[in-house]
């Protein structure tokens, strides 16, 4: 086998992939290896700037005071931005708190740098002080952005709007993924309305009284309501109105939220996942089963439906309603019912599903509308977490 300097002979594109698989600090430090390496890092198309990673590499850094760490991190990010060459950025990941002056400035600097360099994918996680974070105006109208993932820790209540975010207007945005967000001023609805290319919308851990989704190209919509919030914000009614004619997949989860659901027809709908209950909002507890049935009725085109055991229990609460309501699904191919994990060992004794008690009136309500023979599957509940 030949020896010699194989790594320095690799084309820049492969070296960039290797350096991106390391971390940005390691990448910059390779500049001292030899002349070939001096500027390789400066055209890295993907940057991952994470203040938490930054101080886990060496034992002696871990005990540094937070202020020192943040100062070094912002100094480092500043260096990367000022020494990087002028090539486009494909993806930027920025994980940083917003509760100190320096990091707040660096977040804005990074975002504006990314927009100027035609960033396509942006993942921003404001780890602290999310209520202080504001979108820099350069980002609000970014024309290159295709994927935005946003996680903002620190905003914790719907009833206490500390901030107002203007809607983003991103003409190329295809995927929007928002985590941990209490939407008290219709930021989500406004943004969706102004992002006409949107195909995937994932709302993971949100709180909202009113969600109005109008998206002509939307194919996938996940709404997972936040289950841990401030006392008093947990039990509420949430109005969900969807206008998305190309929607194929709809997922909804909420432990104590009662969605009041309306939609125009969803002719392309194939996949539905519903996990609601055990309780609705105080004051409409009696109406909760009806609200859920009305929602299922609106999702009638679905072919692959998954319902949680909690949702079945909600439906089982009102047997009279089950009899008087028509079956919601008329093209069902598969109905999957999930059981809570902790009980699964009983259900799956000897590999056999031996002792599941299914509310029969609910099952027949769900299945009798479908002419063709579909399948019924009972599975243990697997934590569904949105991808990306």
């Amino acid at each position, binding site marked *: *086998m*030949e*020896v*010699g*300097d*194989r*790594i*320095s002979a*690799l*084309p820049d*594109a*492969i070296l960039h*992939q*290797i*350096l*991106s*698989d*390391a*971390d940005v*600090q*390691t990448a*910059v*430090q*390779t*500049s*001292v*290896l*030899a*002349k070939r*390496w*001096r500027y390789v890092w400066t055209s890295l198309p993907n940057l991952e700037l994470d203040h938490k990673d930054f101080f886990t*590499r*060496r034992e*002696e*850094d871990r005990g540094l005071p937070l202020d020192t760490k943040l100062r*070094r991190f912002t*100094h*480092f990010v*500043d*260096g*990367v931005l000022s*020494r990087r060459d002028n090539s486009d950025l494909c993806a930027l990941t920025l994980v940083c708190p917003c509760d100190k002056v320096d990091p707040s400035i660096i977040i804005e600097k990074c975002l504006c740098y990314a927009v100027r360099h035609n960033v396509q994918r942006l993942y921003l996680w404001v780890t602290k002080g999310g209520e202080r974070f504001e979108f820099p105006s350069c980002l609000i109208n970014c024309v290159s952005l295709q994927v935005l993932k946003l996680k903002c820790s620190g905003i914790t209540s719907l009833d206490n709007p500390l901030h107002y975010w203007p809607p983003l207007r991103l003409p190329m945005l295809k995927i929007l993924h928002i985590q941990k967000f209490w939407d008290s001023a219709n930021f989500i609805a406004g943004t969706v309305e102004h992002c006409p290319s949107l195909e995937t919308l994932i709302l993971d851990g949100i709180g909202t009284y009113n969600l109005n989704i109008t998206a002509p190209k939307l194919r996938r919509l996940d709404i997972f309501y936040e289950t841990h919030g401030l006392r008093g914000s947990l039990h509420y009614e949430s109005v969900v109105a969807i206008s998305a004619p190309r929607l194929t997949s709809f997922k909804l989860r909420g432990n104590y939220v009662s969605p009041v659901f309306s939609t125009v027809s969803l002719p392309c709908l194939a996949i539905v996942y519903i996990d609601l209950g055990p309780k609705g909002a105080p004051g409409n507890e009696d109406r909760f089963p009806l609200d859920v049935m009305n929602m299922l009725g609106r999702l009638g085109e679905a072919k692959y439906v998954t319902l949680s055991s909690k949702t079945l229990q909600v439906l089982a609460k009102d047997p009279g309603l089950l009899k008087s309501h028509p079956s919601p699904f008329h093209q069902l191919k598969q109905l999957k019912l999930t059981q809570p994990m902790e009980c699964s060992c009983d259900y799956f004794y000897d590999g056999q599903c031996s002792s599941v008690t299914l509310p029969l009136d609910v099952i027949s309500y769900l299945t009798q509308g479908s002419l063709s023979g579909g399948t019924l599957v009972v599975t243990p509940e697997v934590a569904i977490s949105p991808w990306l």
Partner: protein
Amino acid sequence: MASSIENNNEKLTLKSSDGEEFLVEKHVALQSTLLQNMLDSDCSSADVIPLPKIDARTLALVLGYCKKHADASSSKQGELNSFDSEFLKDMDMGALFNLVLAANFMEIKGLLDIAAQKIADTIKDKPHQEVREIFHVENDYTPEEEAAVREENRWAFEGFP
């Protein structure tokens, strides 16, 4: 993809830089975007596809990877992951670089990803002199030049010796 299943039994011949021929099932070859594009555009009318930059030892490794990934069903992701981590284990650096270049040339993304990750892990958290020794990188900076490069990027060395 439908056509690849219909023509499952077709085979094609790949020829390495050192002249060895490999008979490959088409669905295995399709793991390579390069070969897929050639097959799609009917550039493969020749009986044998030459791969002038890839030697027989490397090509055998590449095809082993492709076969495993082509044959495994998507439900066996865990099995594939452990295959991937075993695949590069104990591989010498020369073979690893041949593999990276082959994966890059043949456009086999999964293989390029794991090989690049392995090289990245070798660079990470090591003093520069050690990195130079492992990869036979000759330091062609004068001491003054090296100090100057370090100085222009000193914000990346804060706290480092």
